[in-house]
C-alpha cells in the first residue's frame, strides 16, 4: 500500500499549504457526526414497533451506551495510536480512521437489522470510536508544521470541523431516516449504511489530498523570532519524556476542567434552559438554544485558537477561566431576572470557550513540547476529554437531582452546579498559571532535531 506511505505524501516544491486544511476538514466534518448521534436514539427505540416501542424494543438507557462507548474508545485510541500516527504519517492514519468509522456504521446497520445491540456497541461504539480518536489527532501535527506562523488558526480550522460535523450529521440523518422510513421500518439501518459510505468516501478524499511538508520547509518569508517568547520552545520533547514533566499533567487538568465546565451544560442544555427559564423558554425554543450553542461551539474553536496566535496560549486560557467564572456566577442572576437574551449570551460565550479550549490545546502543546511528537502528546492529553465526558454530565445531573430531592425549586436547582463550575474553573486557572517552560533536561539532545517536521521521526534520547 505504497499510496498510503509517509514517503509518498511529501509535498513537491510549490505545493500550496492551503490545500491541507480542507483535507483535515474532510475528516473532522465526518467524525464530528458523533455529537449528533442522539438523533438516532428515539427511532432506535422503535425498530420493532416502528410507530411505537414494543416491550422487546431497546430502552434509551441501553442505547445511551453507544455514545459513551464511542467517547471512551475515542480517548483510548487517541492515547494509544498517537505514536503509531507519528510513524506512519497522516494519510495512512486518515485512511485507517475512514475504514473504522465507515465500517462502524455498516456493522451497526447489521446490528439494527438483526436487532443485536452488541453489534451496534461493537460497530459504532468500538470501531467508530477508534475511527474518531485516530481521525481527530491525524491532521493536527501536519497542520502545525504547515502553519508554523499560525499554528492556532490552523488547528482551529480543523477542530472547528469537529464542531461543525454535528450540524451536518444531524439534518443529514433526519433527512435520510425520513427518506428510508416505511410502514415496516424506521429507516435507521439504511441510513447507517448510506452515512457509512458517504463518510468513508469523504474521509478518503481528505486522505488523498493531505501532504506533509518536506524537511526544513518554511512558509515563504517566515522567519523564526530570534528571541522566542518565554513559553514557546524551539526544542522538542519525546512523547514518553513529556509524560514525565509536570507541564503535561498541568495541561491535562487545564483541558479536563475547561471541558468539564462546558460538556455538562451542553449535554443538558435543552432541559436545563426550560427548567431555569420556565415560561420564557419552551421546548421548540430550547431546541433553538441547543442549535445556537453548537454554532458558538464551532465558531469558538476557530476564533479563540486564532486569537491565541496573537495573545499567546496561556493568556487565552486565562481568559477562558476568568471570563468563564464570571459568566457562570452571572447565569443564575440572568435566570432570576428572566432575561432570555442575557441568559443565552452567557451560555453562548461559555460554550465558545469550551470549543476554544479544544482547538487551542494542540498549539499550546506545540509551544511547550515542540512539534516533534505533538500529535502523540495531544493524543495522550485527550484522555482528559474522556474523563471530563463522565465528570461533567455527572456533576450537572446528580447535583440537580440532589437539589430537587432536597425540595429546591427546579428553576434554582442548577445554582449550586453553577457555583461548583466557578470553583472548577478557579482550579483550572491555578493550573494554567503554574505552566512554565519545560526543563532543559527533558529536551531532545540532538540540536538538528529543531527543524524536525512530519518527514522524519527522531530516536528517543537515551538515559
Amino acid at each position, binding site marked *: 500500500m505504497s499510496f498510503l506511505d509517509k514517503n509518498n505524501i511529501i509535498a513537491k516544491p510549490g*505545493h*500550496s499549504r*492551503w490545500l491541507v486544511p480542507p483535507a483535515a476538514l*474532510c475528516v473532522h466534518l465526518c467524525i464530528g457526526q458523533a455529537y449528533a448521534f442522539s438523533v438516532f436514539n428515539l427511532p432506535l427505540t422503535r425498530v420493532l414497533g416502528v410507530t411505537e416501542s414494543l416491550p422487546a424494543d431497546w430502552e434509551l438507557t441501553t442505547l445511551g451506551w453507544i455514545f459513551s462507548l464511542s467517547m471512551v474508545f475515542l480517548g483510548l485510541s487517541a492515547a494509544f495510536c498517537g505514536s503509531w500516527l507519528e510513524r506512519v504519517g497522516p494519510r495512512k492514519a486518515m485512511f485507517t480512521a475512514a475504514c473504522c468509522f465507515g465500517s462502524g456504521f455498516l456493522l451497526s446497520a447489521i446490528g439494527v437489522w438483526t436487532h443485536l445491540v452488541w453489534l451496534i456497541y461493537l460497530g459504532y461504539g468500538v470501531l467508530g470510536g477508534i475511527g474518531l480518536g485516530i481521525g481527530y489527532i491525524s491532521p493536527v501535527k501536519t497542520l502545525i508544521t504547515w502553519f508554523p506562523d499560525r499554528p492556532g488558526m490552523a488547528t482551529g480550522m480543523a477542530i472547528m470541523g469537529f464542531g461543525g460535523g454535528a450540524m*451536518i450529521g444531524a439534518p443529514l440523518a433526519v433527512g435520510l431516516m425520513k427518506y428510508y422510513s416505511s410502514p415496516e421500518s424506521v429507516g435507521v439501518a439504511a441510513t447507517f449504511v448510506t452515512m457509512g459510505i458517504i463518510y468513508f468516501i469523504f474521509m478518503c478524499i481528505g486522505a488523498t489530498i493531505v501532504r506533509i511538508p518536506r524537511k526544513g520547509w518554511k512558509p515563504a518569508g517566515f522567519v523564526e523570532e530570534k528571541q522566542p517568547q518565554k513559553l514557546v520552545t524551539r526544542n522538542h520533547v519525546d512523547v514518553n519524556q513529556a509524560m514525565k514533566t509536570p507541564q503535561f499533567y498541568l495541561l491535562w487538568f487545564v483541558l479536563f476542567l475547561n471541558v468539564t465546565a462546558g460538556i455538562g451544560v451542553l449535554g443538558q442544555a435543552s432541559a436545563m434552559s426550560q427548567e431555569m427559564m420556565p415560561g420564557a423558554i419552551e421546548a421548540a425554543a430550547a*431546541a*433553538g438554544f441547543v442549535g445556537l450553542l453548537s454554532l458558538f461551539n464551532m465558531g469558538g474553536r476557530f476564533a479563540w485558537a486564532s486569537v491565541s496566535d496573537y495573545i499567546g496560549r496561556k493568556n487565552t486560557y486565562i481568559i477562558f477561566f476568568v471570563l468563564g467564572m464570571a459568566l457562570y456566577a452571572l447565569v443564575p442572576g440572568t435566570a432570576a431576572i428572566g432575561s432570555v437574551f442575557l441568559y443565552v449570551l452567557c451560555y453562548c460565550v461559555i460554550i465558545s470557550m469550551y470549543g476554544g479550549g479544544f482547538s487551542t490545546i494542540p498549539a499550546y502543546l506545540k509551544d511547550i513540547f515542540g512539534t516533534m511528537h505533538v500529535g502523540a502528546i495531544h493524543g495522550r492529553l485527550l484522555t482528559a476529554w474522556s474523563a471530563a465526558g463522565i465528570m461533567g454530565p455527572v456533576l450537572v445531573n446528580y447535583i440537580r437531582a440532589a437539589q430537587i430531592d432536597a425540595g429546591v425549586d427546579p428553576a434554582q436547582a442548577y445554582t449550586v452546579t453553577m457555583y461548583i463550575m466557578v470553583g472548577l474553573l478557579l482550579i483550572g486557572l491555578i493550573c494554567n498559571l503554574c505552566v512554565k517552560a519545560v526543563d532543559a533536561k527533558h529536551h531532545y539532545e540532538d540540536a538538528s532535531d529543531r527543524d524536525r517536521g512530519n518527514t522524519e521521526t527522531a530516536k528517543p534520547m537515551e538515559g
Partner: protein
Amino acid sequence: MHDQRDENAVEHGTSSPILIAAAWALVMIPLAWGLLSTLQKALLLFP
C-alpha cells in the same frame, strides 16, 4: 506580516487555484448547509 503574506501568495501560485477552490468548496458547501439548518432552528429562540 504584510511582506510575508505577499511572498506566500507567490509560492501558492504553483498549486492550481481551481484545485484549491474545489477543495474548499468540497468542505464549505456541506458546512454551509448544516449552518443554515442550525440557524433556522436557533431563530425559534427569539420569536
